């Protein structure tokens, strides 16, 4: 079975400061890793994914994430946070050969003006 841990409930960051949202995963075999964002009363919007290749993945809206196999982590980062980045962020993992997603509990990001 695959699982994701997002250890922090809420991440507060000042506008313009770097933003990091942490994610660790557990899966047998090679993982497929994803970040999604959810705004109030909306579905999930895809940000980025790691399937294979370069450990640093660049995605939408200036976000990036780094895959670290030894630490089983896939932290989401943005160099300079915007107020509009305030939302709920979900990390998800799928096992190779199976595109069933297992999500973490989510992190509420609050960017303070």
């Amino acid at each position, binding site marked *: 079975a695959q699982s*994701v841990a997002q250890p922090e409930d809420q991440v507060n960051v000042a506008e313009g400061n770097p933003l990091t949202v942490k994610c660790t995963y557990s899966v047998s075999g090679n993982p*497929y890793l*994803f970040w*999604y964002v959810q705004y109030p*009363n*909306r*579905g*999930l*919007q*895809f940000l980025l*994914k790691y*399937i294979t290749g370069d450990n640093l993945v660049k995605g939408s809206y200036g976000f990036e994430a780094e895959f670290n196999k030894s630490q089983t982590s896939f932290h989401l980062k943005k160099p300079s946070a915007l107020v509009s980045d305030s939302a709920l962020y*979900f990390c*998800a993992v*799928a096992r*190779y*050969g*199976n*595109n*069933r*997603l*297992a*999500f*973490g*509990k*989510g992190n509420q990001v609050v960017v303070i003006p």
Partner: protein
Amino acid sequence: DAGVTQSPTHLIKTRGQHVTLRCSPISGHKSVSWYQQVLGQGPQFIFQYYEKEERGRGNFPDRFSARQFPNYSSELNVNALLLGDSALYLCASSLDSSGGNYNEQFFGPGTRLTVL
């Protein structure tokens, strides 16, 4: 192009009733998955369908069932509703479900089900 669409947007039912939720995938997508998102938690996988066949089922009771139609749209049915079934039900579509070549899933806006 239209994204994944779901209907209805909101639904209120009482305990013991039955509910049907509907999903239309992105044009050309043949795989549909259903997820349940309870308030304050991440989505949990319920079902995946590909070419009208069930390809996966999560840890949900038999009260939950689904099907996929020849046009690749899908229905999720829940019988004998419980208070705990109150949640946002998300549908996601992807090109196919073939292993080894992951096709990302695109999510619809969801159906908010409230069970009283």
